[in-house]
């Protein structure tokens, strides 16, 4: 087992090196020149060339790669070409809003989705079931930005209950923090709710057909205990799996949600960096994300052994 973990950690470095080479080449071979963007609209070719030379962007690609890779190996992701701020610092500044949004979305979505799924399975074939499934289909089909604008229009512009945009750090109070995150978390969570609710319903329907459920019913177990203790627990594994798969969905949704609700998170940081070709930020953030993603996969694999003792890695 220990050897397995070591092998997986070693393979993480191989994956990250591959990602690093791929991202570097993709960025530098695709159209776009940060020097031209820095110089501004009125700059001449001569001025742009001067900036390009000073930033080392006119060096051969292998030279630029070795320079960047050397810095990364020393633990330095570089500095933003535009703001001169270290990439680590910029990511650190943007971490809290993204983590807050993702966690809140996850909490709200899982709570709602599992409830919807359980109720829909319990009331299978009834109006409630169909209504919940219609809501799920609509939620999964509607783009995040459309839902976002509708929520802004209703709850911020018309009712004036919540702010349109922005982010308040949790250090300024839970309530202001929540006020800024309610709408984006709802917009982002809707697709997630739909995905989990449908899987929960399907799994619950399967479990509710099992013999031990029939036995529990005949023993006179209350509906609440039956659903939550006997059925939901046994339906948990596929639900947890789909929650894990949905994290990728959440990451892509965060980028759009942060733009619509003007949340200064990592998604916005990357989108802005791409638009201005700020190579160190793009490369740095993708490296960090890929590292985190690989480690999460490793953790998931290890958690399987805890959930099911029959699983053994050689």
């Amino acid at each position, binding site marked *: 087992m220990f050897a397995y973990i070591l092998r997986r950690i070693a393979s993480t470095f191989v994956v990250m090196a591959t990602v690093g080479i791929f991202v570097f080449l993709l960025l530098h071979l695709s*159209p*776009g*020149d940060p020097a*031209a*963007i*820095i*110089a*501004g*609209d*009125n*700059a*001449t*070719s*001569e*001025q*742009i060339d*001067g*900036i390009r*030379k*000073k930033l080392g962007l006119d060096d051969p690609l292998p030279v630029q790669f070795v320079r960047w890779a050397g810095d990364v190996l020393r633990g330095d992701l570089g500095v*933003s070409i*535009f*703001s*001169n*701020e270290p990439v680590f610092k*910029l990511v*650190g*500044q943007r*971490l*809290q809003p993204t*983590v*807050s949004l993702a*966690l809140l979305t996850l909490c709200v979505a899982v709570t709602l989705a599992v409830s919807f799924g359980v109720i829909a399975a319990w009331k299978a074939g009834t109006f409630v079931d169909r209504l919940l499934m219609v809501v799920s289909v609509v939620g999964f089909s509607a783009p995040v930005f459309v839902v976002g*604008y509708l929520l*802004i*229009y209703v709850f*911020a*512009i018309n009712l*004036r209950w919540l*702010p*349109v*945009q*922005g982010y308040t*750090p*949790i*250090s*300024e109070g839970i309530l202001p923090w929540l006020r800024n995150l309610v709408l984006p978390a709802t917009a982002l969570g809707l697709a997630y709710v739909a995905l989990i609710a449908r899987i929960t319903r399907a799994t619950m329907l399967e479990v509710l057909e099992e013999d031990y459920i029939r036995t529990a019913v005949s023993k006179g177990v209350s509906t609440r205990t039956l659903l939550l203790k006997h059925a939901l627990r046994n339906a948990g594994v596929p639900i947890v799996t789909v929650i894990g798969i949905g994290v990728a969905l959440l990451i892509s949704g965060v980028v759009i949600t942060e*733009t*619509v*609700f*003007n949340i*200064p998170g990592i998604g*916005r*940081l990357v*989108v*802005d960096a791409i*638009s*201005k*070709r700020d190579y160190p930020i793009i490369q740095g953030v993708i490296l960090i994300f890929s590292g985190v993603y690989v480690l999460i996969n490793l953790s998931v694999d290890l958690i399987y052994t805890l959930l099911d003792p029959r699983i053994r890695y050689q």
Partner: protein
Amino acid sequence: MHSTRRTFLGGAAGLIAAPNLSFAQTAPTRARTLRAVMHSDLRVFDPIWTTANITGYHGAMIYDTLFAVDENFAPQPQMVSKWGVSDDKLTYTFELRDGLAFSDGEAVTAADCVASIRRWSARDGFGQHLFRRVADTPVVDAKTFKIVLKEPYGLVIPALSKLDPSLCFIMKKKDAETDPNTQVRDALGSGPFTMNRDETRAGNRYVYDRNPRYNPRAEAPSGLAGGKVVKLDRVIFENIADQATALSALQNGEIDFYEVPPQDLLDTIESDPNITVQGLNKTGHMGWMRLNHLHHPFDKVEARRAMLHLIKQSDIMKAVFGEKRWKECGAFFACGTDMENDVSTEWLKEGQNIAKARDLFKAAGYDGRPVVLLQATDHYLANPAPLLIAQWLRQAGVNAEVAASDWGGTVTRRSNRKPPAEGGWNIFITAATGYGFSNPVAASGHAATGEKAWFGWPENAKQEQLRDQWALAPTLAERQKVARDLQANAWDYVHHAYLGQFFRASAWRKNVRGIIGMPEIVPFWNIEKV
């Protein structure tokens, strides 16, 4: 240690809160803080390193200038108290006014000014034009310096007070001695605001606090000149990338000022009783089209002339701005400026003539090669305009190809001098202020110096000779006369083509007062919230 769910949650909350504890600092009240959404993210802090307008705005916040133009675009002393020129018109002497200090408390000296002027002149087109005639810039004493010329030059003061980027901002000597191709790291000046780096989050918000050491002039504010009296404690440039969100935030009172709201929604926001909609730049912007003079077919003057007859400005303006806030304009120096005239603008008065354009392309020997138009899909003008122009080109028998990318891709490709088939281009579109076009020397786009000229690389010896003549003309009337000759020549060899003049409006909450309307810069002094 015994872990419970509660301690875990507490720890997680602490982890989330930790990176932003600095936000908890005491901030000025909402009534003394102005939140503004500007036309672009502030990407670069050095206003000499880049020509980006937004960095010019930043520069006007934290730096000051020796001279500045008033609301009539007339240069007025700003940091300078007294100045004079020798009888032979070769030596300009400047004396700084009392009480000028950088925001760290150090006095502004003549040595700071000379170093700043020299760095600016290494980057800026107008500065370069001036410094080709500068023999020396001696420092006389702590408050006095001179500019000594090799030959008389009538635009010394207009150059030092120029309004379009890059402005001649005065920095500390140590900053001004930075290589002009390297960004200055410290955002420290002697202007009316200071940049609060602790509260600033690059890409998100840029925070400026009132500079308590700033010593404004006694005169009333006028344009960028006069007393820059700051009536707010803090101004924040919020970077809200999504226009609909920014507009909603303005309607909801979360921001106070929106420089360029979506122009197609102006009628809607004008009906909001809490919002003022008003243009700040009376010279507007000119949409313009650069033609690549290096390659077929626009290496032939007939093909360039064809473009003047092909463009229907009103269609492009309507497509972008609707029915209001634009006009057709054929003046090479933009309409509504001192240099406006209507010499050689028959092509505009006659209107679109596709048959004539087709004949001119034939006369140019157009051989059917694809004509590549760069389309920037994230640019308000360079997204729709190429589609219309491509259609007109096809009607004129030209094989038009639209190459779509984002603005970042467009600005990269436009610097490619190779033929279109090898990654170059034939036509690209952008916009600049009418004020910027009014000065043949300051506007880099007016240069016709071939390989050294702005993208499109037009070459015309007569144009260059006339630009120099304009710069040396001693009076406004004489400059206007040369401008007419310049325009006649420019429309004869077709330096570039215009797509129309438009006047974008800004929007702000009704309780915001005292906004000064100027092209190129939005000043944040004199503004108050009532």
